[in-house]
């Protein structure tokens, strides 16, 4: 089975995000980029699927940071077999429509049976890349998926709705899946292994076509103003515990 995992790098959300000078985007240069956490789950699910049913896993991304190789080496250390990087004039923060089209063009020639990608990314302002790749390739798409099992040319996928309710679908391959969570937490790639791989791995380089564009223009980017803010309690755990306990008591919620 030929599994392809398109991935995307996004700003590290634990960093302080700053808006650029003209107020229409982030100050990308000041940010550290990391792999979209849903893509981490997609990689995990792909490796699990390969371990269960055999095949190869190819991880592919648009190099918007010049640092994509790190993410690709990590994916290889986790069990992916091949890695490819799409290059061109695609800066940090390149829109989803552009990335999806570039990825779709590259993936088409790989003739995948299964495309697994993160269901969404924190910077998907113009939409998620999974359904776009599916549309470009004319493949069926199911997203918000928490488990994929492949058997006899078909995939059984579990799609999450609210409240823990899940829909089970049977899909003939090839298909594209938007992974919400792998059925086990993403494994750790020992840096020792990543570094070994970095020395020997061959990453295919694909020259990207031109940018498709988001189809919309951001005219203002800003930090949300908090509608309200909590009344902050000072003090250490003892003092705070005291206040919480008092409030619980006041509401009559103490047991017994």
């Amino acid at each position: 089975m030929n599994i392809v995992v398109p991935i995307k790098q996004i700003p590290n959300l634990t960093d302080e995000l700053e808006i650029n000078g003209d107020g229409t985007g982030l100050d990308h240069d000041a940010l550290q980029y990391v792999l979209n956490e849903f893509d981490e789950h997609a990689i995990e699910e792909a490796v699990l699927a390969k371990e269960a049913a055999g095949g190869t896993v190819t991880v592919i991304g648009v190099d918007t940071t010049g640092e994509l190789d790190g993410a690709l080496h990590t994916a290889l250390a986790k069990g992916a077999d091949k890695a490819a990087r799409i290059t061109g004039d695609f800066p940090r923060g390149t829109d989803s429509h552009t990335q999806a089209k570039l990825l779709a063009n590259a993936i088409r020639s790989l003739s995948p049976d299964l495309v697994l990608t993160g269901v969404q990314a924190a910077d998907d302002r113009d939409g998620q890349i999974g359904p776009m790749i599916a549309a470009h390739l004319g493949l069926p798409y199911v997203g918000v998926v928490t488990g994929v099992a492949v058997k006899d040319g078909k995939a059984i996928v579990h799609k999450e709705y609210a409240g823990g309710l899940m829909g089970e679908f049977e899909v003939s391959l090839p298909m594209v899946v938007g992974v919400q969570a792998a059925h086990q937490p993403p494994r750790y790639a020992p840096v020792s292994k990543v570094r070994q791989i970095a020395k020997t791995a061959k990453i295919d380089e694909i020259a990207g076509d031109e940018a498709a564009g988001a189809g919309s223009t951001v005219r203002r980017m800003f930090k949300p103003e908090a509608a309200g803010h909590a009344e902050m309690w000072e003090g250490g755990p003892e003092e705070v515990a005291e206040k919480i306990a008092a409030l619980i008591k006041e509401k009559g919620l103490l047991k017994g």
Partner: protein
Amino acid sequence: MAVGLDKVRPDKVTEEKHLVVEGMDISGHWNRMFEQRVIWDYDVDNLEKVTNLPGGESLGWCYGCAKCTAVCPIDIVGDYSPRKIHRKTQIGVDLFTSSDLWLCTTCMNCLRVCPKEVNMIQIMPAVREQAVLTGAVPPELQKAFEDTAKHGNPLGQPQRKRADWAKAAGVPVPIMKDLKRAVDILWYVGSYPAYHPRGMDAARAAARIFNALGIDFGILGIEEKDDGDSQRLAGEKGLFEMLAEQNIAAFGKYEFNRMVVTGPHEFNAFKNEYPKYGADFKVAHYTRFLVEHLDKLRPMLKKPINLKVTFHDPCYLGRHNGEYEAPRELLRAIPGIELVEMGRCRENGYCCGGGGGGMWLDSFTKEHTTMRLSERRVREAAEYGAEVLAVCCPFEVSRFEDAAKSTGNDKLIVRDILELLDESMKE
């Protein structure tokens, strides 16, 4: 399989009055002395798996004298020592998959007494690295690796908050990036002083002491990352190398005469390991550094601390790097302190359990021992009547405080020497 387990072969034991061997008449009894002896009684496969690894060779030198067993801190709370590991390989235990692999804290007391120089400080990381590569790692340790790789510290705290502790120091803590000039002392704060609430107490105390002494110092702030030495000893060599490269690059951006570190593990890393990766600077642990300034410091130590204090030698300051005096000199300089030594001190100091990855194997170790090493240690401190357990390793404060509580020795006060000095400097 084992070869030649039948050591005595009665069919070969015959008696002859005169025996001629190669033309010589030897009188006496024929016994197995005269035939080839079985020298390999046991299967060596498990041993060779270890000794074939670079760094693992010395386990093969063990001749079973058990000197290590007598001093191993784990054997006191469990059933474990290098000699026992060697023996277990003979009876079919594979160290690569055994829980024994994760118990060693690399405290080095075994190597101190070993006549054959069986070096667990090299053996453990070598074997553990193989386990790490295959993912066979206790989950809590794996999480520390992952947090270190992701956030630059094993506590999983955001990198951007690495200097936040300084805000409450009450004195200026210059950050090199803002300072834009050379300093005398680059202070490497370390992950636990930067993020752990009790570590922060020590870091803030250090900042106040440095300021009072008029030291020209700066810290790296968010450019500082964990030293990675304990992760290396726990088997994640690649992570250590990555951090070493990043830290060395950060150090290289600034000019300084000397580095001072808060922790013994960092001291060990920068003194003994980083030079292998191109680092070239002088480094001192804060205890030695402050002893150099004792003439100026002593008059500031005005407030007496009238307590019975005992000192726990950190393995990586004492045994690994030979520093036993500086911490004691600082303690003796504080008025009122009565310094008592515990039985296991100095070269034979007990281990807190935090080294070699033990810091991140607490649940695992607890499962395989009768009590935590830190719990054994606070009991010893209490047995000697100490009111204060003084430490100078950032791993130890929280370990010993937890242990004091869990063993019912709540009255035992655990303080970093920095905190005691800071306290004594208060008006």
